[in-house]
């Protein structure tokens, strides 16, 4: 095995372990986990069995690319662009939600005070002491 193959396989294993841990701690949804797991397995496979590249030859030829590595890099970049777009959209959504929460918290104390006041009046012990 060449050093880069060992490095690729080792990186794939580490990432697979980390991703699995995220799933077990319920910080990742199964669908997300499946996508990442496929990517890490492919990386490990390519590290251990580099000949696996040759299986991409057909796809490479159909798309008019010179070598399998062109296929892999081109599609990796496209997928990354897609992910960046999705993440940007998701961050914007979360940013909006965060603002809503911050504004809601800011407006909360006034109503909370009124509600708490009502609750205290109803509480029997409070009524006794008063």
């Amino acid at each position, binding site marked *: 095995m060449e050093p880069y193959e060992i490095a690729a396989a080792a990186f794939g294993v580490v990432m697979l372990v980390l991703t699995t841990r995220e799933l077990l701690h319920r910080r990742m949804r199964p669908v997300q986990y499946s996508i990442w797991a496929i990517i890490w397995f492919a990386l490990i496979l390519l590290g251990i069995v580099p000949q696996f590249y040759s299986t991409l030859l057909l796809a490479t030829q159909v798309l008019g690319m010179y070598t399998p590595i062109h296929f892999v890099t081109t599609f990796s970049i496209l997928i990354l662009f897609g992910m960046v777009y999705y993440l940007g959209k998701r961050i914007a959504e979360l940013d909006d939600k965060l*603002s809503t929460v*911050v*504004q809601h*918290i*800011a*407006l909360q104390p*006034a*109503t909370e005070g009124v509600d708490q006041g009502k609750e205290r009046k109803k509480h029997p012990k409070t009524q006794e002491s008063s």
Partner: protein
Amino acid sequence: MRTEERLQMRVACIIPAFNEEGTIAEIVRGALKHCSTVIVVDDHSQDLTAELSRKSGARVVTHILRLGAGAALSTGFRAALGTDADTFVTMDGDGQHDPREIPRLLEPIRNDEADIVLGSRLLGQHELMPLYKLMGNKVLSMATSLASGVRITDSQSGFRAYKRIVLDFVMHKQRDYGWASEILILAAGGSFRIREVPISATYRAGQRRGAGVKDGFKILYSTIRPKSSAARTMITGRVDGAV
């Protein structure tokens, strides 16, 4: 305006503030002479803005994170809609606006000549306005005028007065300085009457506050883009008063 007339108009003043400990107390005290309620929206200040505002008689609403001027103002509007005020005044917390000019803003509303009154720095003396702000303001005001169909000379002014009916139906969405144009475009689309009155403005030496060049481009983009967020959110329903 006579005192009894002022009492008839229940006015709430909303002041968004971020690190304004040097000016906020004086502004709150000045605003309280003309408004029944003063609400300071502390946009996560790191100084004594909230404490000084409270001591000066304002009700303080605090953001636990900094969201920006537009978001602070919409929080303030929501808080103010929970009061019994029928008119709302907004002004900056950095001392640029003079609270003594509040009656001038309220006058057209009291006379039922306008639903929104805009304090225009460009109709007043504006020789001291920094050149880049003056140029930017003119471009943005022109864009806002085109988008709203109403001639506006100072679209970025934060010194304004609104009738309650306007805020019942119109609320901006932009969290940064884009709110100033957005709410005017929304209001004009809802056939609310917009009028400008001249105001003075104080620019402190060495103080670089408010919208910058980058903000200017962002505001311009959000104002002129086709089907802007303002146009899409056009009067979709009554805005909830959260408090």
